[in-house]
């Protein structure tokens, strides 16, 4: 097994989940509680990676961070090397690609929080930000874990975006899914099978965690 690829993949997935937890929470909060009439525009943008082919998304990200774009030029001036085909570039792409997998469960969980509880907190003199951390986050814990875990699992399995933005650089951007593809190309089915099984086991384990978290009653039959 290619342990370097496995290490890169888990590092990428963990960082993506971590960043999305920080970036996704305010976006989800805004999507849930904003009364702006055009908010569906932002909602659609957030959901776009769900339907867009990874190659298309990867292509636009590549162009956006490439040396011909202002963002890409700014980054290479700052850091000294361009963003595409680096781990950082891949991380950025993964964050955008997994955004809906984090934001949507977060927003769904916030939606479930009774507004009257939030209002009661405000009347007790607790600010909106403090209410978020003292009340909304504990009540949405299952949704937050779901979002973090789903974005982690989704990043583990990404392929198209990695190829477009990250390329296939050993130790830097070669992830497990690309390693499997390479093994199959080289007709090394045994190697591919081992890595594929690992990915399957991890993905299944992660989903087990999500469904267990969201299960409210541990009973054979719904009982009150």
């Amino acid at each position, binding site marked *: 097994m290619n342990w370097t690829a496995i290490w890169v993949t888990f590092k990428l997935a963990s960082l993506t989940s971590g960043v999305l937890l920080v970036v996704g929470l305010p976006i989800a909060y805004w999507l849930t509680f904003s009364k702006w009439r055009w908010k569906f525009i932002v909602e659609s943008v957030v959901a776009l990676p769900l339907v867009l082919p990874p190659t298309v998304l990867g292509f636009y990200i590549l162009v956006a961070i490439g040396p011909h774009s202002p963002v890409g030029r700014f980054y290479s001036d700052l850091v000294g090397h361009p963003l595409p085909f680096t781990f950082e570039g891949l991380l950025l792409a993964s964050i955008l690609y997994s955004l809906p997998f984090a934001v949507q469960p977060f927003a769904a969980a916030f939606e479930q929080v009774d507004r009257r509880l939030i209002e009661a907190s*405000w*009347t007790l003199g607790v600010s909106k930000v403090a209410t978020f951390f003292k009340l909304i986050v504990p009540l949405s814990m299952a949704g937050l874990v779901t979002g973090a875990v789903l974005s982690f699992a989704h990043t583990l399995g990404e392929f198209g975006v990695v190829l477009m933005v990250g390329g296939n650089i050993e130790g830097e951007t070669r992830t497990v899914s690309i390693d499997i593809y390479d093994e199959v190309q080289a007709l090394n089915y045994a190697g591919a099978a081992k890595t594929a099984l690992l990915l399957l086991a991890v993905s299944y384990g992660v989903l087990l965690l999500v469904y267990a978290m969201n299960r409210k009653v541990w009973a054979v039959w719904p009982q009150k």
Partner: protein
Amino acid sequence: MAAEVTIDMTKTFSGRAPIQAHLRYEIKASTVLILFGPSGSGKTTILRSVAGLEWPEEGRIQFLSRTWLDTKSGIRVSPQDRQIGYMPQDYALFPTYSVAGNIAYGLGALASEDRNKRVAEVVELFQLQGLEAAKPRELSGGQQQRVALARAVAPRPQLLLLDEPLSALDAPTRLQLRGELRSLLKQLALPSIIVTHDWSEALTLGDVMAVMGRGLVHQVGKPHEVFSRPANAEVARIVGVETVVQGEVIEQADGLSTVTVNGTKLKGLSSNAIGAPVYVCIRAEDVVVEPSGSGMTSARNHLLGRVTDIAPQGVMVQVTIDCGFLLTATITRGAVEDLCLVSGSSVIAAIKAGAVHLVPRSG
């Protein structure tokens, strides 16, 4: 400047009549304003606007010298900065916090020793000892109500806002807590605004009462005065109790209390102690008018009186009878003709004891 509350606002929800309130009343230490009306009359919206949870598109809300809302000069004070205690209808206790956690929730500004001290104080005041660690879902309805009130009171608010504080409880608990709430409000010496649609709550708890219907404030005054002297037919219809007079319990036997009202004795159902001052409340449709000198009926109260006024109201007629106090009866036109009722006629008003409601009042 007098200690006053001014609520002057217009709030529109699409598809409904706009809610308009123009009311101003003076407050002393523990003045309780009752917002009274049927559901959908806009009373909760007014309470929420005072809390800062609803933003009227136009108006001014002023509490003592502080302006909380003035759409003309763009003042909008957030609910956090109003120093209010607010208790919504279903209490909205925080499910992830214990009883003590709920009470301590609004005390974040205090140092932890002071906070613990205040929580202990409030727990004792609301008789919640032993329940500090319990989660809200483990509590009975009455306990939840007390915790919600304790949480609202703990940060020492300037004004207490209660939305239907007793309506989520079953009838016996409601009756018990009604009395407790009244003595508590007096003890806290805290002005409050209470929303209710229950006239006995309005009479027991209120010092000032605003009657609302279809988004408008129809009448503001002392509760018993509003009940006995409604400003117009709309108010009379909303309050639904035509006779409210002051009386005193003089005797109790077999679950029945005897009260005197201006020398007239009446029997009613209640558990008030002897000597307790009460409001005697009788709905006009519960009064049967009989010719004087008729025989016994099952009704416990037979009051000899004289008709002072006969006022037709649609198919019914409202008859006012002076039997030591003024009693209103609603009867049909046919009954008026059969009994040959005219102003001055001598009649007997019969009322079942169960229809004589005795509501405690402060002496």
